[in-house]
């Protein structure tokens, strides 16, 4: 397994983003176990410390918990929490930036939505 890591942010943060993405998509449900640090390190050819760091941030954000002797498990309500924070981020940063871009291109937001509704049944 080789992932394409970009050079914009530290690897551990990108790895964390990957796990978050899986949680949002539903690939990781509440109560699911995360693959072991060792396994992820081996599969992605990363140092175990990097993987541990990513996992630790997930723990700090109360998205996963460490169960002694068993591993990392996704917490109940993690997805909801993530959705909430992602939505908030979208509204705060991405949506305004998107609106600005639409305006800059000279497009009309409502027009776009109508076209979109028309195109998809």
């Amino acid at each position, binding site marked *: 397994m*080789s992932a394409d890591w970009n050079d914009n942010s*530290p690897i551990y943060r990108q790895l964390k983003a990957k796990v978050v993405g899986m949680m949002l998509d539903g690939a990781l449900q509440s109560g699911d176990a995360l693959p072991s640090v*060792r396994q992820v390190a*081996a599969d992605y050819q*990363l*140092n175990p*410390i990097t993987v541990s760091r990513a996992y630790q941030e997930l723990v700090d954000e109360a998205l996963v918990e460490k169960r002694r002797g068993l591993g990392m498990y996704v917490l109940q309500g993690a997805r909801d929490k993530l959705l909430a924070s992602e939505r908030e981020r979208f509204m705060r940063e991405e949506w305004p930036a998107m609106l600005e871009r639409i305006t800059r291109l000279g497009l009309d937001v409502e027009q776009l939505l109508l076209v979109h509704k028309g195109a998809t049944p």
Partner: protein
Amino acid sequence: MSEQLDKASVISARGLCKQYGKQAALDNLSFDIAPGRIVGLIGPNGSGKTTTLKAILGLTGFEGELSVLGRDPRLARDALMEDVCFIADVAILPGWLRVADAVDFVAGVHPRFDRAKAERYLALTKLSPKMKVKAMSKGMVVQLHLALVMAIDAKLLVLDEPTLGLDILYRKQFYQNLLEDYFDENKTIVITTHQIEEVEHILSDLMFIRDGKIVLAATMEEVGERYIEVMVGPQQLNAARALQPINERSVFGKSVMLFDGVNRAQLAVLGELHTPSLADLFVATMKGAQQ
């Protein structure tokens, strides 16, 4: 760094010196390697990295102080070899050796060898017990060597260009096996390699060496925080240069500058920020050391 050897380190060196004729292979080298780390010792040919490894393994004499797992490799080499294992270059197993005999021999002489483990690894390969090394491809020889090494519960593993000349499949498998089955917080690994990209994300610590001197020694975290690459727009060139980049190169007509220890916020106004790849960092540091 204190003058004294660090007892807590797996490897502690102070003032290592070694001359080959007029050439100084090691020039007052000092460093520490903490336990549980994967350290990359990276340098051009003739930089002294092989000599450093040889000193650590007691294969060469030197001046200065060196402690490996609490022992001086010059004096206590035989005891040291029970806790240290190394793969020096690929494919150095003798051609006449059979797979089964190799396992028997290591089991017979190494107190920390787990025969069952070695046989498990071998079962996953295409190696049969009666095969001789001379009938094997380079990749298969490495598989055998690795199977033996991974079954040894050594505290320190030294790898000198372990994947040189191997095709990509064996190379990936090599590191996968190492990370999946061998490495844990009680073990330390020191790797030298030319394939920087391959080990870039596996390393926890970095040491650049040139002309027998350490040019950079840091953890990968520190490296990530210290070194920042900026894609500078033409308007910002002068402002950027005023901050004294350690390297400047051109990519698609744009100027890419590498800064060491400059404030992130200051650089953000000059352009896009990136983490430099280890290879670019290496080239930049080596060029710098040359001047």
